[in-house]
Every structure is written in C-alpha cells, then in structure tokens.
C-alpha cells in the first residue's frame, strides 16, 4: 500500500477550459453578488491598512485568491497518486482569477450604462465609483482583470507551495486582517494594560493598522510560522535519530492528561483575568457572548448529546426570562412577590422543567424532522402568547415587564450597569453547565443518548426507554436555557417578547454546528467567535459595520458547514464518524476483512498444525 510506484500514475495537468470557465464565472458572480448587496461600499469607511488597503476592497479581493486556490486543488482518491502541482496550476489560477476580475469590470460597465437601481438598491453611482476608482470604465476593466490575474495566481500558488511555506504566506495575512478588524478589542486591552505605545504603533486610531504595524505583524506571524515549523522538524528528526532534545525529558515526565489539565486551567484563568483589563464596551460584549455560550451549552445537550434537533430552544430562554421578571420585578402586572434573584432562580428551574415536560411530552416521540418543525412552532407560540392581549394582564404584552432589580449578592447587586459582573456570573453558570454536560455524557444516561443517536429502535430493543431518555435531555436543556434567561432578565432590567424570536434558536444552532456538535470546547469557541465577532440576533459584535450582513453570513456558514464539515470546526470524534458514515463504511469493511484474515492466520499458527 505504501509503495507509491505500484499506484497508477495520476493524469497529467491538462487545460480544461470548461472547468476554468465555470470557476471563473463563479468567482465573478461571487464578487458581483458582494457588490450588489452593498458590502464593499458600506464597509469602505474604515481602512484595513492605513491609506493603502480599505476594508471595502478587502471584501472583494479574497475571492480570486480563494477561487485560485480551489482550481488548483485536486481530489485524491484512495489508491491514486497525488499529482505534482506546478506551473500548470498557476496558469489555471491566473485564468480563473482574471476571468472573475474581468466580470467585475463588466459589472462596472453595466452600472454605467443601465439604470436598474429601482429594484436593486445598491446599483448606485457610489458602487460605480468604488469599482472604477473614479477613473472610468476602461480603468475598471484593466485594474480588476489585472488584480484577478495576480490574485488568482497567488491563490493557486498557495496550493503549489509546500505546507510549511504556505503557512508562512497565509499567517501574516490572517494576522493583519484580524488585528485590524478587531481593533476595538485589542486597543482596549492594550490601553488597560498600560501598553498604549503598542496600540499607537500598530493602529492609526480607527483608521486601520499603520503600515509599520502591518509590517511588524507580518514579520511576527512569519517568524511564528517558521519557528513552529522548525520545532516540528527538529522534534521529528530527533525522534527518528533517537536523540533526546533538551527539555523533552521534562515534557515527557508530564502525562498527556496532566498537560490537558494544565492548559484547561490556564484558559479558565485567562477567561477570568482578561476582563479585568478591558473596558466597558468589551464587558458588554463579553456578557452577551457569555449568555450565548450558556445557551449554546444547553442546546448542545439537546442537539449534540441526545441528537434532538430542537428549533424552539428560545422558548425556554423566554420562560426563564419571564419567570424571573414576574418573580422579582415590582412592576410585574399581575403578581409581584419581589423575590430575591437567587430564590426566584429555584422557581425558574422548576417552571422551565415543567414547561420542558409539557412541550416535550407530545413532541419527543415524533420523527426527528417533524420534531424540528414542531418545536419551532412551540417557540413561536410561546412568543405570540407573551405578546398577546390575552396574557398581557400577566406578562405585560408588548410593553413587557420593566424594573427587574438584578442579582443581589449581599454586598452588591449585579445588573446591566456592570456588565463585567454579569460576565462573571454567566461564567459561573457556564461552569455549572459544563460540569453537568460532562457528568451526564459519561453516565448511564449519556450512554443511552449515544445509543439513541446511533440507532433508536435498537436502543429501544436493548431496554432503553428512549422516550424518557430523550425527555431527560430536553428538560436538561430547558433548565440550562432558563438560567440564561434569568441572567438575561437581570442584566437587561426589562424584558419584551421581541427578545425571543426564532432567530435566536437558529443562530444558536449555527453556533453549535460551527463549533462542533457534542463537544463542549467546540461549542464554547463557536459561540465566542461567532457572537463575539459577528454579533447575536440583536447584540452587536466586534464587527459592528457588518451588522447588516451577519444573518446572511450565518446562513452561508450553516450551508457551508453542512456541505463541507458537518461535524464542526472542533468536532466530537464520535459525532463526526456518525456524520460521515457512508464514506467510512467501505474503509471499515476492508479493515475488518484484513483483521479477519489475520485472526484466522494466527489461529492456525497457534492452534492446530498448519497444513504445509
């Protein structure tokens, strides 16, 4: 198998005009789409690199690079030899990028000659000016084709380069883009760490990174990429030669599990220490992110562990929020016990569990896809009920419930005015949620969920009461969501039906899927990155100017993840196997056959006398 000479030679590079045309056309269409939804013009206000590269152009130029990269990629099937990449691929990339760029020129020409601004609101002179650099249609054709040719070649070139060099090329770009885009967070952090001089060196005060800063970042990223590569090769060669590297012994003495514990501890410490050095806006953002992490952890129990696609998860968030509001606010329209928050939390738990049971009992027996739609229906019904005139004497209808006092902690009261305290509170609950999901996953109930995910009818036949097991997951999820709702109510100080739209459920689903269903770390990172950077349903993220586009991006992300990586970016091993079942079957079959042969072989040599 390892003898590559026995494998059939791969087909040589050949010029495939249809494929190139298709990909080039797609590249052009992608850029035209980005132009027509108005993204470049709208986000052009802030440069990426001071005076040299604007965010608007950045939103387009990645396209030829990516398509160049795609055209030079190849599918290597089992038993096939990978084709050596070379000049041919670069030519392909150039053609694809150039064609895409040319089509952007065509778009500029069309905008200049036809006016269809009536339905298409972004078909505007501003877009024309943007595309032509205010220098006329001819220039647009020239510059975009040239850019496309060059960038397409770069993209293809990345494929041709060995992985190590590719990293040295891509990391600096990623570093510059992310540092520039996340200016708000970084400069805030640097300022509070009394490191303003660093911020001053890198940032041109909300005009992107400085040229000097970009160069520093690029050099740093290259060095890191190079260093990482060197260490890896050193370790590999040392292992091969049997020599012991200095320090390796130390590392070896620490067991893998201990190392994992240490790194987890470091992350936890960082989560609690870093907010001390951040400003108010960042705290607000972190508090929102925290709430979504808590929600996502709860949904993960339902979707990731038990495999129930609950699209009405927001209902329990709403129940938690409203129950807290009624129990704690003096302004609740119907009954005002004005309990302290922690006392009300106990009631909230029971109410959420009860609502989970009431909703869960009828839906839990349904087939997975029906269940998804029905839970969606329930999510919407609950919002409609809170909004309706019918229940407004109890829950305030569209006016909601205001003056929710916050969380009294003896010495202080945690409420929206101190988002950092809210963040810490949320983190405490996250730890509870993480502990709960971890304990449950490795328990009798967790094994039952696993079995149900694998094959529900066999699980049933093996004595698992599938309805009860799934209901347990549903209710656990409901209780975790209600915690989040209770904190949300305390943080916001008032609560309205508008905060509990279906959108929340869908965004949570994206978060859980992008992070990796069934994996706690994945779900947390997914929530932090997506909600932190793009923003929640009504909470702004770091990329505020992207606000209009975030829901579109969530949709695209969901589709891309399902198509390319349904297991998520940080997958749960088992879950990813379940989602790739088909591809594995054959592989596994071969493995099993080999093993069977081996077994028979060993049996004959050990046991009876083998025939000569």
């Amino acid at each position, binding site marked *: 198998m390892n003898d590559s000479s026995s494998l059939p030679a791969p087909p040589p590079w050949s010029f495939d005009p249809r494929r190139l045309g298709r990909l080039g056309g797609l590249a052009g269409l992608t850029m035209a789409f980005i132009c027509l939804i108005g993204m470049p013009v709208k986000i052009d206000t802030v440069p990426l690199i001071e005076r040299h590269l604007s965010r608007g152009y950045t939103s387009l130029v990645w396209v030829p690079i990516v398509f160049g990269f795609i055209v030079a990629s190849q599918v290597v099937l089992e038993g096939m030899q990978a084709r050596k990449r070379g000049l041919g691929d670069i030519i392909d990339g150039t053609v694809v990028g150039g064609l895409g760029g040319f089509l952007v020129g065509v778009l500029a020409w069309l905008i200049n000659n036809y006016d269809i601004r009536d339905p298409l609101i972004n078909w505007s002179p501003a877009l024309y000016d943007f595309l032509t650099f205010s220098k006329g249609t001819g220039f647009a054709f020239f510059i975009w084709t040239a850019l496309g040719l060059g960038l397409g070649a770069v993209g293809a070139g990345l494929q041709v380069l060995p992985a190590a060099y590719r990293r040295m090329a891509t990391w600096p770009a990623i570093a510059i883009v992310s540092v520039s885009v996340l200016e708000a967070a970084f400069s805030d952090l640097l300022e509070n760490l009394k490191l303003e001089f660093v911020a001053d060196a890198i940032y041109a005060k909300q005009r992107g990174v400085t040229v000097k800063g970009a160069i520093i970042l690029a050099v740093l990223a290259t060095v890191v990429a190079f260093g990482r590569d060197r260490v890896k090769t050193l370790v590999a060669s040392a292992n091969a030669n049997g020599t012991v590297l200095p320090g390796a012994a130390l590392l070896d003495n620490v067991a893998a599990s201990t190392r994992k514990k240490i790194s987890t501890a470091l992350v936890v410490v960082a989560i609690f220490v870093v907010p001390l050095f951040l400003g108010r806006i960042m705290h607000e953002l972190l508090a929102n992110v925290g709430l979504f992490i808590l929600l996502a952890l709860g949904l993960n129990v339902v979707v990731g562990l038990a495999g129930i696609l609950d699209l009405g998860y927001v209902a329990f968030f709403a129940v938690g929020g409203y129950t807290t509001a009624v129990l704690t606010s003096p302004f609740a329209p119907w009954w005002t016990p004005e309990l302290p928050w922690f006392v009300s939390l106990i009631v909230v738990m029971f109410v959420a569990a009860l609502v989970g049971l009431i909703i869960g009992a009828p839906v839990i027996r349904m087939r997975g896809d029906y269940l998804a739609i029905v839970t969606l229906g329930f999510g919407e019904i609950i919002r409609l009920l809170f909004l309706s005139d019918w229940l407004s004497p109890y829950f305030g209808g569209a006016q909601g419930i205001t003056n929710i006092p916050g969380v009294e902690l003896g010495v202080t009261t945690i409420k929206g005015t101190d988002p950092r305290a809210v963040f810490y509170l949320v983190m405490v609950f996250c730890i509870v949620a993480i*502990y*709960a999901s971890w*304990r*449950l996953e490795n*328990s*009798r*109930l*967790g*094994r*039952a969920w*696993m*079995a149900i995910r*694998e*094959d529900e*009818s*066999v*699980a*049933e*036949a*093996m*004595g*698992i*009461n*599938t309805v009860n097991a799934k209901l*347990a997951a549903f209710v*656990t999820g409901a209780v975790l969501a209600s915690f989040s709702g209770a904190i949300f109510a305390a943080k916001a100080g008032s609560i309205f039906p508008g905060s509990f739209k279906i959108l929340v459920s869908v965004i949570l689903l994206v978060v859980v899927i992008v992070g990796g269903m069934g994996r706690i770390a994945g779900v947390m990172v997914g929530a932090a990155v997506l909600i932190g950077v793009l923003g929640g349903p009504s909470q702004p993220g770091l990329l505020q100017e992207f606000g209009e586009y975030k829901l579109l991006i969530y949709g695209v992300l969901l589709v891309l993840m399902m198509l390319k990586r349904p297991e998520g970016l940080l997958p749960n091993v*088992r879950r990813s*196997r*379940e989602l790739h079942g088909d591809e*594995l079957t054959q592989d*596994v079959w071969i*493995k*099993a*056959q080999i*093993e*069977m042969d081996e*077994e*028979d072989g060993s*049996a004959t040599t050990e046991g009876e006398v083998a025939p000569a």
Partner: protein
Amino acid sequence: MSHVLEIKDLNVVFGGLHAMKDLNFHVDEGEIVSVIGPNGAGKTTFFNTITGLVKPTSGDVLYEGHSILGLDPNQVTALGIARTFQNVRLFANMTVIENVMVAQHCRTSQGALSALLNTKAFKQEEREIREYGEKVLAFFGSRLVGYRFDQPAFVLSYANRRRLEIARAMATKPKLLLLDEPVAGMNPKESAELTALIGRLRSEWGFTIVMIEHDMSVVRDVSDRVVVLDHGETIAQGDFDEVSNDPGVIEAYLGRPLENAEDNT
C-alpha cells in the same frame, strides 16, 4: 406449570399478507428451541412480535404466564427477553465495552441527579456496570477483551460483531434469549465454535434460548426441539431427526415431489 414463553393463536396481518397464521408455540425453562423455515416463512416477524416491535392482529403472547402484548420493546426487554438482529445492528460508533454497558440500562437505576452529584451509589453502579460488561465479554475468550474494550464496534470483523451482539443481549440480564441467525456469515470453524458457546449459554448462564437458524448443523447440535415455520404456520415440531424426516418439511424446503406437481398442472 407455566411455560417461560407461550404463544397462543397468534395472527399477524400486514395489509393483505398473512405473516403469522394461528401460531401456537411455547418454550420451557432451560430449553433451546430452534425455529427454522424457508425464506419468508415469517421467522423474523415472529421475533418482532415477541419483542413488541410488531403488534399482532389477534392472539396472545404470555411471558411467565403474563401477557406481554402491547408493551413497548424496552419493557419487554426489562421483563427479561433479549434479542439479537439478523442484520447485525450494533451501536457502531460506541466502543465495545460501551455497547455492553449501555445494554444494562434497564437493570440499573442511577439517574441524572446522582450523575451530577457523582454520588457514592453512582460510582458504585458505574463500577458494577463495567465489571459485568467485562465479564460478559470475557465469555467470548480473548476476542473482545483487553485493548478491544475501547475500540469502536465498527472496526470489528464480521464474526466479532456477531459475538458482540450476543454479548450485548446477554448484558441486559435476560431469562430468555432470542438469537436471530447467530452464525450467519461465519465460516464453518467459527460457527462450530459459536455452537459450543450457545450450549454454554444455557449450562453456565442459565438462559432459555430461542434461535432462528438456517445452518442445519448448528440446529442439530444444540436444539432440544425444532419448530418449522412456513407461510406463518407451524408445519412441524419435534426433535431434529423427527423434523428433518417430515415430508411436509422437505416439501416446504424443496418443493413438492415431481409427480404431484404434474398432477396439479
């Protein structure tokens, strides 16, 4: 005295198809009964009806004297009837040990709360579940133990998957074990070995066994009694030699003798 399992006048009708016709059947404690019959005779439907997957049109299924009709499959299993499947249906992405651990679900009781609090009882039960799982797997010799515990079930060879399926059924701590073609797809050596194991399932573990099987050497070697099904009806019953010489059985398997066929046309 009552039988372990007794089936009275069972009828199952799918659409217009009479899958089970007035079937009467019983198993006594400690027996090994084989159910044989040509393809499509209704053997798997028979198992499905006992385990609650198929609701019969009429008739009754009694387990230890009590009707188990209308119970969910998990309740049937909890009463002490465990089964394997004809087309091996393991929890492929769970490890070998997890497969047998999860099967003890209905024999254990620790819920979410004790798992969250990590109580003493919970830890104790987890330990017991694991120990019992290991014990069950050890029954199959060295094949499913040691490093195999933590391998996912899908990497197992075909024969080992069959063994693991039996182990999983054993782990539910049943009284009555229903084996659906336990040696299908095994080579002669493996099936001889498994035949011996089936005998030991009774002698060492005390299971009563009903087995669907096509392999006549296995049927001959372990069965106390053989029941022949055809078109959902019992056409013969008795020990292996009686049944194998029964003209009706031969006819069901091989078709009618030539002269009869000519008479009919």
